[in-house]
């Protein structure tokens, strides 16, 4: 088995988020590092929202990719790192574009003191209203566009 850490990172980076399948764990900034120590693959990830159930599915997908790359269960180490805490500022530009294309308004930046306004991902109107700060997944708020009247999700700043 000859695989470099870079190649492995590319493959792991392509793992999709199970609840937002348009974006990968690389886009989201969930994948922090990939190291090879002798025969072992050491992967470090960070959770988005603390209770996000997608993390378990992501770990399973990571194991599967590593398995296919020839790593047995005894040679796989997945560590969860909480520090520094994940922030929506960790989402890459590519990830933000993909979210917008999927109809989810990307989070504003910087997450601590967001600037700018959210616009409707469908008609781009700035006339939008928040229906609820809590949406279908922990990371999203429910919005509605007052121009095209379509409801949409907004990725919450964290």
């Amino acid at each position, binding site marked *: 088995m000859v695989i470099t850490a870079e190649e492995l990172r590319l493959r792991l980076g392509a793992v999709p988020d199970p609840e937002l399948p348009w974006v990968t764990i690389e886009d989201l900034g969930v994948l922090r590092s990939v190291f090879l120590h002798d025969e072992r693959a050491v992967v470090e990830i960070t959770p988005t929202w*603390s209770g996000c*159930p997608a993390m378990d599915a992501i770990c399973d997908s990571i194991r599967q990719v590593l398995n296919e790359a020839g790593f047995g269960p005894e040679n796989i180490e997945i560590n*969860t790192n*909480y520090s520094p805490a994940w*922030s929506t500022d960790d989402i890459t530009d590519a990830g933000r574009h993909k979210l917008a294309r999927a109809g989810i308004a990307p989070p504003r930046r910087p997450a601590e003191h967001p600037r700018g306004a959210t616009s409707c991902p469908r008609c781009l109107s700035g006339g939008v209203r928040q229906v609820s700060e*809590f949406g279908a997944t*922990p990371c999203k708020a429910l919005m509605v566009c007052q121009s095209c009247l379509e409801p949409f999700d907004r990725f919450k700043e*964290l």
Partner: protein
Amino acid sequence: MVVTGTSEGGADRLAGVPGSSLFRYVLYHADDNLILAQRLAEWISRAHDLEEDIALANIALDLLGRARMLLAYAAQLEGKGRSEDDLAMFRSEREFTNLLLVEQPNGDFAHTMVRQFFFDAYQLGLWKSLIRSADSPLAAIAGKAIKETRYHLRHSSHWLVRLGAGTTESRRRTQRAIDGLWRFVPEMFEPDEVSDPLADAGIGACPNRLQPAWDLCVQDTFSTAGLLLPDDPFSRSGGRSGFHTEHLGYLLAEMQWMQRSYPGMQW
């Protein structure tokens, strides 16, 4: 789940503090979050509108996620081979160290929101303090928790204003909830044998020092909402030592029965 925070573990930092103290301290806060998550989950499919149902479920999930991080860390600190699930599912009522506030039944929506608001305001101060903890895994968990807590507190404080300044009936019910839950407030700020030495060591938060910011937050919201601070001197405590109100046993029976009936089962 392995908590890696940073390379420095908590154990090296515990000079002058008994080794089991940090375990107990982490467990206090894990239990608070676990029990309240369970209470909030009881609302699922019962809230007055779909958005609120989703909001309560989301908050429950955040608290559960936080409880899992803390329980996993506690299990690691204990080092006796117990897992986060063992700590959640195979401890009895006397071994749970949550605050009495969080185990109180949901009551009506006003009652749930008042309980939540009291807790959210407490959590904000707690995480603000623990973010500077000398114990890096605890500081890392605080760094995650604080951001979510701001969302929770905004949600519960907005509801308090809406209910307090709403109709006569919503105001009456909210004030009734405040008067009923007030007796559980002092416990949050009570000194105890675990928290205070850890606070002195720069690891924990001194419960007593969390009170001024909490008072300010509550006074501010109450005055906007037109709600009154009770002057009831009666208080109850004992949760941190495992002495609970009658309600916790029923909650645990429901939460744990599957694992107790079929130990180790998975789905």
